[in-house]
């Protein structure tokens, strides 16, 4: 079931956004064109990130998990981004400054069903070996293989 949330078309490991705003526009337009979100998504996700930042500083990686209320989501998805430069971001909880170049945009449609996946994602980013591999990945195909392997393993 989770396997279908990772999709080769929903990842970009060479995004050249220069700001958070540019990143939201780029990813937002892409998921909108592919039919995963409705029209309000881009504004919705931007606004939510301002009010409730999603950056997390793990021991071995910094990343953000932008997400928005289910009303903007048509089909659940996880969109994986590596930006070519680190962007200024804010941390979840206390809004402290941080930098991140990895982003997992979470399209949560049915919160109850996707809560298990979220906890596996969070657990994965505490796993040093997984993070080493995650940072090494070059192609979307390798990324899919890594993610599906990791998350199907832990959720089955």
């Amino acid at each position, binding site marked *: 079931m989770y396997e279908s949330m990772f999709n080769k078309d929903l990842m970009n490991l060479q995004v050249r956004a220069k700001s958070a705003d540019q990143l939201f526009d780029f990813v937002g337009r892409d998921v909108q064109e592919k039919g995963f979100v409705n029209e309000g998504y881009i504004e919705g996700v931007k606004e939510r990130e301002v009010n*409730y930042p999603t950056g997390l500083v*793990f021991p071995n990686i910094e990343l953000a*998990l932008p997400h928005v209320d289910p009303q903007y989501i048509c089909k659940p998805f996880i969109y994986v981004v590596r930006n070519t430069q680190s962007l200024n971001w804010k941390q*979840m*909880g206390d*809004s402290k400054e941080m930098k991140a170049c990895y982003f997992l945009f979470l399209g949560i449609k049915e*919160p109850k069903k996707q809560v298990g996946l979220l906890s596996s994602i*969070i657990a994965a980013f505490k796993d040093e070996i997984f993070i080493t591999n995650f940072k090494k990945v070059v192609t979307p195909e390798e990324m899919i293989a890594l993610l599906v392997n990791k998350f199907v393993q832990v959720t089955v």
Partner: protein
Amino acid sequence: MITILVCCGSGVATSPQVANKINDFLTDKGFDDVAQAEPHPVETAKSRIDSNPNIIVYVGIAPADDDLRETIKANNVIEIVGVPWLTGIGEDEANAKVLVAVKAAVKKPAQ
């Protein structure tokens, strides 16, 4: 039931993660029959704290605004930042704070 209120922006994504972790911890320590963590959207936090005297801890993943902070203070609720349960950094300390609060509340007569 002693209640630990866990709030994020929507109550659907990160707060259930944190609430599950706190509940696992409470089970581990044998307090799951007297205390539980509940995830909710942060917009509902103020009215929940005002109306439910069993809420003794507020775990915030979304920053509390001044209004909410005042309510937390006025009701003698202990505020704990929820991010350690997500990243693992400082999780033991955060769990210890919950345990202290729950133990203190258990000693008081039931409300």
